[in-house]
């Protein structure tokens, strides 16, 4: 539609394109040029503050820390260390394990919620969506802190249980454990699971469900053969949207993890803080990114295969 009006305006003798310089002419003639020029400020800014720092991060990962300075002769020693010292691999493995469990828990718990809003809420749908996404916009730090209040040694759960008389001593395992980290992550990232799943459920053509029923499928079969496969893109998106950021999370393991629940993000922070080994911190960041990317590729591939199988 805009193309038509565009050609109309360029053929107009009074059109600005006739009087303008080459840049304006290009803008008037080409849709791509208009798109690019509008996107340019954002793109140039983000390229500068994302790609340039990344390039330097990669370069720094090839350096070695010497006291407070760097030895800038390129070496892959840091990368070798990641695979030689057990602490690095252990923390990477634990981070992946914790976020994988948290991701599965979040997606499984949020699916029925998204399903309810998509299929069973007919009035005030917007209110439900706002209600579900509202907490996610507010401070992540404070939502995690809230769980410290709830799970603490003298926290809400322990003191409530003692008051009721169910336990005599506070339950020590609530705080500073992997479980505490998993619960908090699942709670804090719920909106990231609900929204994509909800969108994919909402898109499902209702007549497909009717057709399945007419052809003799019960509610369970209808769900497995129609709803689930069609909502799979939402489930995939939700899993990635939770798994990727939580693997590198810092706040939750720092506040609730204790020594057993520490994750790779904590070590990266320590490398840039107290340990003061920036090249190693850079190496760990890059290794983390590569591992996440590989896991996601494999995951998406498997899910696509599964989808082809069931549908």
């Amino acid at each position: 539609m805009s193309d038509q009006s565009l050609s109309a305006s360029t053929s107009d003798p009074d059109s600005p394109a006739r009087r303008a310089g080459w840049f304006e002419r290009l803008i008037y003639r080409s849709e791509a040029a208009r798109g690019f020029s509008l996107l340019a400020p954002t793109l140039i800014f983000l390229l500068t503050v994302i790609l340039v720092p990344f390039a330097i991060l990669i370069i720094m990962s090839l350096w070695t820390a010497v006291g407070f300075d760097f030895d800038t002769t390129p070496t892959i020693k840091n990368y070798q260390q990641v695979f030689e010292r057990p602490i690095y691999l252990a923390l990477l493995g634990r981070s992946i394990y914790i976020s994988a469990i948290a991701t599965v828990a979040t997606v499984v718990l949020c699916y029925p919620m998204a399903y309810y809003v998509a299929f069973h809420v007919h009035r005030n749908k917007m209110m439900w969506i706002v209600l579900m996404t509202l907490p996610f916009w507010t401070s992540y730090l404070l939502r995690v802190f809230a769980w410290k209040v709830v799970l603490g040694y003298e926290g809400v759960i322990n003191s409530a249980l003692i008051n009721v008389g169910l336990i005599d001593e506070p339950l020590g395992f609530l705080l500073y454990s992997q479980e505490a980290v998993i619960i908090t992550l699942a709670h804090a990232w719920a909106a990231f699971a609900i929204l994509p799943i909800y969108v994919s459920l909402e898109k499902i053509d209702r007549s497909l469900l009717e057709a399945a029923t007419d052809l003799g499928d019960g509610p369970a079969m209808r769900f497995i053969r129609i709803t689930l496969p069609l909502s799979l893109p939402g489930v995939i998106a939700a899993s990635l949207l939770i798994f990727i950021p939580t693997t590198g999370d810092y706040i939750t393991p720092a506040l609730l993890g204790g020594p057993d629940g520490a994750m790779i993000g904590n070590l990266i922070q320590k490398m840039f803080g107290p340990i003061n080994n920036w090249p190693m911190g850079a190496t760990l960041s890059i290794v983390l990114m590569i591992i996440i990317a590989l896991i996601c590729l494999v995951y998406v591939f498997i899910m696509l295969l599964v989808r082809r199988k069931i549908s």
Partner: protein
Amino acid sequence: MSTGSYIRKRSRPLQVYAIIFIIVLYVPVLFIPLFSFNDSIYVRFPLEGFTLKWYVELFQRDAVWNSLMNSVRVGVAVSVISTLFGIFAAKAIARYRFPGRGPLVGFIMLPLVVPLIIFGVALLVLLSRLGIPLSLWTVGLGHLIVCMPFSIATLLPRFEGFEPALEEASADLGENALWTFWRVTLPMIFPGVVASLMLTFTVSFDEFIMAFFLNGTQPTLPIYIWGQLRFPQEFPSVLALSSFVIAASFVIVFIGLWINRGAHAGTIKVE
């Protein structure tokens, strides 16, 4: 029974599940304000009695006011800049087809997904190599990376539900690009702009990780709270300050989402 009624049939278990879900989503956060009014330095049941003393005490601290002002300054600057950039970017994405559009949009949305610690660390390395001292400016720079995708995602549905013919009509009637934007485009996307300003302000106001790596000597409010978490005797005042931050964020975000609610339902209509 009409066709399709079995799909519309109410599901009692699901409804119960949904209500429990919402309660579990909100209750942990509500314990913070609850205990901030408790007259005890311990966070435990039974509650000891109602008090406002933790709030009164906060008011008298210069450090709280300073970090609040720092957060507001960064938040206002970041929300205005990211919304301005977001308007252009959202229009480009919604209106024009150009080569590489998909991958470029993916790149812009990257900060929503990639762990922020990696962006924080990478920026820190760049700034230190360039010899730029850490300050509120560098915190703002980091927050811009976080906020731009949010701003674009908020504005995008506004442009998608907006009839391009209106802008063309304005141009045909002799308005130049600037006036067309001012008198046609801006009023049409205005709810999105207000929502984007409010949401990005809150995201910046509440953001911790980027600020943690990039702040200099002037802490923002989340950094100040983080510092206070080390001291057990400060716990009640941290609860009071947190309650204030949570309340402010909830109100701003709720208004923002509500103003922009039509964008998702696809109800933006040409009058």
